[in-house]
């Protein structure tokens, strides 16, 4: 096999010549200029959204940190009365929830939103309004969720919310509902971000940036986003099931009626363990960007590091039961997960050795980012080693739910994310600020955080082994825990001092600027360090290696002069170059939207809708839902501009179209990702059905109590006919037979609705109750999930018909139709699988 390849040759002449036409740069500036004043909240430029996003995520980090300080103050002394048990329960629940859901995942998405376009050589991410929507949804949802603490409405069930503790029997009131609806909503925002990142990384790379030349951070974010697509639907389903049990008494988790609390644990940890890698891999990606710059050498073993990212991602999905070793699962099953937990150490170790080798190969600038990286290596490796310890089942049985686990998870998460993040803040600040952060202060920050962290958490290993359980609000003196706890508390305040000093440094030095930033102070080699403005790079470079700024002399000067691709705005609007996913060849120009109120309005009212649902103000929630949908429709109506502009030259003799349909379009790619998300959600529902059947087959009805199989057959036939009708509509639209296409689409709607009605009647006429047994609950859930998809597809069909009526749909301008068609076929496939499960499974598997 070939070794890592060196730089490819550049074309003999650059794509565009000098001098550039007058006014070209000014036009670019004017087009990409964000709004001013209060209207800045309507900005959608990745730069502003990225900075808002990072700022908000850091705010949540600080707030959750304050909660941690309160907890540590309570635990400093035995039998302390600083906090009562109820408040303490709320604090540890909110601390974990905020750190995991409102800080860790959003902050890595935020860094990606800010940096990826520049790193890839794009003008922006492909769906900037989606990024804005995801951010504002997270902002409004997160702030509302945090404020529940001030009203005594914060949940007390711990960040993983295990039932039966979180069912209405033991947790009456609405605090847990806040968590369930809030977190479900925020996860939807994370998925929106993942769609953006996948399409962005695959389709907006600079020409020449093949998969092998992609910056490692882009690889890490691609892997991250794919993991989000497959992991997050499980928690969305889990939160929906628990909310259904709490609100309507559907017994998914109640053993007396065939449910099982362990179903929650399976679903939660199927999300929750990959979540650890979802957090860690982007951080590892940042480290893999910073280490080569600090060492002045390319990353050693680039291919192995990419392999490690992919390997960690897939093995991470085989680890979830290692959080459930103490639940009584058969030992052989535990052994599978124990083995997978050990196997995942291999890809992690590959990365660690790569970073060490890169440091060893170069002459390291021992600046603040490098210090934080070294702190990360020390801390994360210790956390990884205790991870292998708790992967050993007998050891885990001893350490489970003790402070040993608290120590381990903080070594992994704080070590694996927070240290790299501080390194990233110090490293990338000069790319977005007029000043770099202070080197002198940075060293103090590092010292305080590193020493504080180890003083806090290292003793917790011993506290745990000495038997102190986690989540106790106080303890008796004389158990051997007193001094250890006091030391941990002192360490926590040292960390706080470090974070405070960092905030002071940011306040003193950080001055946001995308046009006059401090620049490439580290002599880094990747594209985000090119000179840029609101429009990102003046021209889009040709990339011939992984560190183009090191290997392509004059690159920065030529890019800034406009000698590479797309130096202006040939369509007169915002645009970016779309390239092919594997080899990054220029394919077409994506016309991009301007700022507007729709994303922020849709996010605000979606968040309000969820909030009002929690407090059971249904009419007000419905009003908010209508406003949110109206904003989304307004937003969507401007999409799909059609072939409004002839193909444009981008330089180098290349002329590309400005509008495409079908599999080459960015919208098709996004819809495929959405279908994968939907498939993962449905697979989680199928797993839940099979799991409940495995634990409680006695509540499954005999074959003669099931609906007549004729109903299922009729529903299946109607579903297939509806798909065929839409396929016919697609073919008719291609022939420009618009009337036939729209008639077929309308017929498809009728057939789809009839299929759902037949299925609903089949289940209803048996008298099956969703609250009597877990069987009834899961059958109605499967039907409900399908009904939601049918409703969405019908809505999309009417929207498509409306656009046709407005003259916005024809054979050339058909992206809206294609989106509807793709989701339609998926909905039919999901419906057929659901019929097979609900009507077929109990008949064929007694």
């Amino acid at each position: 096999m070939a070794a890592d390849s060196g730089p490819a040759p550049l074309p003999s002449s650059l794509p565009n010549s000098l001098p550039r036409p007058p006014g070209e740069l000014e036009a670019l500036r004017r087009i990409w200029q964000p709004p001013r004043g209060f209207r800045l909240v309507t900005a959608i430029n990745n730069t502003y959204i990225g900075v808002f996003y990072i700022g908000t995520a850091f705010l949540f980090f600080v707030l959750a940190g304050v909660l941690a300080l309160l907890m540590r103050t309570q635990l400093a002394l035995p039998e302390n009365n600083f906090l009562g048990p109820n408040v303490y329960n709320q604090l540890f629940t909110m601390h974990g929830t905020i750190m995991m859901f409102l800080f860790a995942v959003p902050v890595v998405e935020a860094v990606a939103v800010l940096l990826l376009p520049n790193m890839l050589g794009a003008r922006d991410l492909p769906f900037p309004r989606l990024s804005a929507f995801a951010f504002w949804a997270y902002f409004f949802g997160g702030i509302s969720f945090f404020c529940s603490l001030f009203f005594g409405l914060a949940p007390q069930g711990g960040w993983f919310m295990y039932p039966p503790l979180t069912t209405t029997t033991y947790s009456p009131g609405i605090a847990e509902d806040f968590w369930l609806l809030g977190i479900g909503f925020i996860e939807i925002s994370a998925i929106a971000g993942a769609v953006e990142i996948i399409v962005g990384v695959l389709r907006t790379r600079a020409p020449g940036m093949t998969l092998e030349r992609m910056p490692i951070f882009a690889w890490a974010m691609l892997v991250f986003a794919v993991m989000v697509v497959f992991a997050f639907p499980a928690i969305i389903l889990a939160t929906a099931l628990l909310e259904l049990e709490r609100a309507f008494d559907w017994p998914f988790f109640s053993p007396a009626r065939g449910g099982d609390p362990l179903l929650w644990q399976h679903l939660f940890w199927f999300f929750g363990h990959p979540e650890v890698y979802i957090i860690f891999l982007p951080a590892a990606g940042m480290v893999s960007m910073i280490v080569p710059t600090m060492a002045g050498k390319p990353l050693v073993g680039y291919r192995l590091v990419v392999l490690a990212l992919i390997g960690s991602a897939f093995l991470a999905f085989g680890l979830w039961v290692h959080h459930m070793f103490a639940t009584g699962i058969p030992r052989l099953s535990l052994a599978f997960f124990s083995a997978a937990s050990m196997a995942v150490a291999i890809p992690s170790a590959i990365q660690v050795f790569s970073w060490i080798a890169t440091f060893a190969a170069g002459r390291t600038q021992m600046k603040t980012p490098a210090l934080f990286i070294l702190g990360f290596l020390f801390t994360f490796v210790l956390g990884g080693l205790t991870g292998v310890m708790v992967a050993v089942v007998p050891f885990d049985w001893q350490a489970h739910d003790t402070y040993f686990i608290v120590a381990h998870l903080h070594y992994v998460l704080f070590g694996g994310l927070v240290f790299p993040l501080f390194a990233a803040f110090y490293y990338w600040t000069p790319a977005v600020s007029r000043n770099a952060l202070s080197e002198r202060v940075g060293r103090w920050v590092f010292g305080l955080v590193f020493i504080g962290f180890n003083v806090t958490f290292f003793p917790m290993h011993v506290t745990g082994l000495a038997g102190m359980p986690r989540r106790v609000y106080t303890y008796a003196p004389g158990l051997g825990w007193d001094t250890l706890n006091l030391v941990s508390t002192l360490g926590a305040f040292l960390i706080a001092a470090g974070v405070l000093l960092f905030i002071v440094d940011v306040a003193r030095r950080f001055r946001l600027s995308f046009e006059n930033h401090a620049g490439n102070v580290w002599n880094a080699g990747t594209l985000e360090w090119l000179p840029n403005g609101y429009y990102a790079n003046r021209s889009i470079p040709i990339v011939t290696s992984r560190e183009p700024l090191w290997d392509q002399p004059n690159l920065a000067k030529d890019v800034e002069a406009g000698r590479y691709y797309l130096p202006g705005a040939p369509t007169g609007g915002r645009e970016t170059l779309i390239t092919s996913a594997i080899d990054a060849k220029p394919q077409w120009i994506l016309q991009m939207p301007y700022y507007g109120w729709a994303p922020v309005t849709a996010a605000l009212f979606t968040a309000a809708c969820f909030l009002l649902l929690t407090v059971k103000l249904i009419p007000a929630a419905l009003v908010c839902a209508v406003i949110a949908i109206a904003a989304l429709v307004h937003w969507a109506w401007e999409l799909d501009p059609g072939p409004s502009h002839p193909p444009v030259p981008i330089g180098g003799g290349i002329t590309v179209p400005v509008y495409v349909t079908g599999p080459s379009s960015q919208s098709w790619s996004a819809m495929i990702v959405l279908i994968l998300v939907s498939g993962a959600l449905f697979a989680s529902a199928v797993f839940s059905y099979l799991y409940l059947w495995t634990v409680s087959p006695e509540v499954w009805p005999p074959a003669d109590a099931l609906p007549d199989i004729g109903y299922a057959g009729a529903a299946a036939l109607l579903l297939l006919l509806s798909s065929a009708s839409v396929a016919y509509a697609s073919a008719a639209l291609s022939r420009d037979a618009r009337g036939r296409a729209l008639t077929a689409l309308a017929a498809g709607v009728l057939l789809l609705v009839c299929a759902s009605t037949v299925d609903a009647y089949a289940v209803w006429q048996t008298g099956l109750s969703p609250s009597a047994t877990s069987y009834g609950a899961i059958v109605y859930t499967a039907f409900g999930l399908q009904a939601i998809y049918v409703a969405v597809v019908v809505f999309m069909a009417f929207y498509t018909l409306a656009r046709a009526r407005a003259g916005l749909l024809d054979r050339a301008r058909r992206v809206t139709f294609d989106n509807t068609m793709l989701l339609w076929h998926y909905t039919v496939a999901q419906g057929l699988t659901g019929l097979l499960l609900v009507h077929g499974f109990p008949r064929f598997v007694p």
Partner: protein
Amino acid sequence: MIVHTTPFTRIALRIWSGAIIWAIHFTVIYGFAALACARGYADLKVLGMSLVTSGVLGATTLALVAALAIARRALRSGVESFETWMTAGVAGLASLAIVWEGLAAWFILPSCG
């Protein structure tokens, strides 16, 4: 006209094929063991071993052969590309994980204890 280049889906599936085999193997062995234990088939014997042990080892052998075949095919393709290297690498890593996880059935007895 759009420049059509290397088909993404095919390449992506090829790179991920080892990981997909690992995922199928993991689902099968975990699901099979859980179901067999829950339904009381632990005492059935196949080839002198318990049903669970023989089933898991059989699935492991099949998955290993498939993953190694992918790695071998990539290595012998004669195409020296990043994608080919990654296909072989992912399949190799998946093979290690498959063996490591499947071996548990050999050592952990009784399977349903």
